[in-house]
């Protein structure tokens, strides 16, 4: 089994953070542990920003090289995944790997296959449900691509990667209310886009009534 197939680290993962701490202190044996813990998450982030396989590998490799170079500056006890994400995202920007617009038209199926949601759906033996789920996923992906960059980044960190709001805001260099607003607006836009395609009338009705989670976000903002 390849080492990267183990369960990847999430934000605040103690194994990854401890490995980075040891590595920053000069313990070379900690680097493979760190790599195995965060590489799948870094790759996932980069994959969402570009489709060019050679670029993905290059960016992931460069991210780890930069982590290595800057290991002495890692603050003890801070979150290495947040650090790695910011480096990877900057690299994507530096290398012009903003892939949403660069994706080939035939990349839709490969994208769905690579997505964990699509993989989970594929395990269901009901062909009709698979087809419906694929359609929904495709609508979701289209809507996500149409979101402003700021909302994409906010949703990516909070909803996909599971970062706490405060950590995500710090990572993106925005204020907490601003991030909450981006997440709320992004999620609302996604929900409306998906429902609009499926049932235009119900989407309009639903859009008028925020969910409990969204009410919570709004309460946090106001």
């Amino acid at each position, binding site marked *: 089994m*390849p*080492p*990267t*197939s183990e369960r990847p680290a999430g934000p605040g993962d103690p194994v990854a953070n401890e490995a980075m701490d040891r590595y*920053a*202190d*000069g313990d070379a044996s900690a*680097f*493979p542990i760190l*790599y*195995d813990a965060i*590489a*799948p998450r870094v*790759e996932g982030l980069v994959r969402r920003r570009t489709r060019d*396989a050679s670029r993905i*590998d290059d960016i*992931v*490799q*460069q991210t*780890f*090289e*930069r*982590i*290595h*170079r*800057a*290991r*002495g*500056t*890692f*603050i003890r*006890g*801070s*979150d290495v995944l*947040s*650090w790695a994400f*910011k*480096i990877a995202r*900057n690299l994507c920007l530096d290398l012009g790997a903003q892939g949403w617009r660069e994706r080939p038209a035939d990349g839709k199926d490969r994208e769905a296959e690579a997505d964990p949601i699509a993989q989970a759906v594929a395990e269901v033996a009901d062909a009709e449900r698979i087809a419906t789920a694929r359609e929904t996923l495709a609508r979701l992906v289209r809507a996500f691509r149409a979101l402003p960059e700021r909302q994409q980044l906010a949703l990516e960190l909070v909803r996909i990667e599971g970062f706490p709001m405060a*950590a995500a805001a*710090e*990572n993106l*260099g*925005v204020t907490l209310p601003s991030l909450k607003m981006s997440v709320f607006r992004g999620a609302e836009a996604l929900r409306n886009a998906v429902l609009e395609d499926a049932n235009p009338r119900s989407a309009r009705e639903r859009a008028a009534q925020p969910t409990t989670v969204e009410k919570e976000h709004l309460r946090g903002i106001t």
Partner: protein
Amino acid sequence: MESLERRNSVLASIAEIPAPTRRELMRRQAWLVVSGVLGALTLFWVEGGLRATGRPPSLVAWTSLGTSCFVGVGMWFLFTRTRSGHRRGWLVLGLATIVPVVAFVLWRYGLGHLYELASPWPTRPGYRCFALSVATGGILLGALLLAWRRVDPMSPTATGAAFGAGAGLGSALLIDLWCPVSYLPHLLVGHVLPIALLAAAGAAIGRRILRTFRS
């Protein structure tokens, strides 16, 4: 590339790239920063050091005390990072520079006015203060940039700007002890402009030398 293949490639690659550990980096930074501070202080003392030049000692003490507080707060925000290890955002860095500078000018001008020493002083437009500020701040900035060279993988431009602004604030503290003039245009040219200049220089140079490069 398969994940195992990439893993081996990354491991092989980093084995060839030199990277300082925490202790090595701290030693390098401490040595360079102390040298920079001593260099700036030496230049300050060579140029005359603390000069009252007709100012009452109480005015010197009050202005220096206030300036130290403003500069200290600004430097703390400029030089430290967040708990996640990220450099603070541009908005915070901007506020951490502008607020202490405005406070310093108001404090200095206000106290000068109180002691009736803020009257126009046409023969002192502020060029000497400007030169000394840039020189002392430049030494500090150079030391900071060298100390952190090639170890900022995320925001080298912001780090460079923060270092420049911090060095400028530090030099403003020294020049405050040296310069008796509280005339507003003089303060702007001789004491504030160097901070902006050093921040811009820090951003431009930091972008080039603080970032980590691929070998």
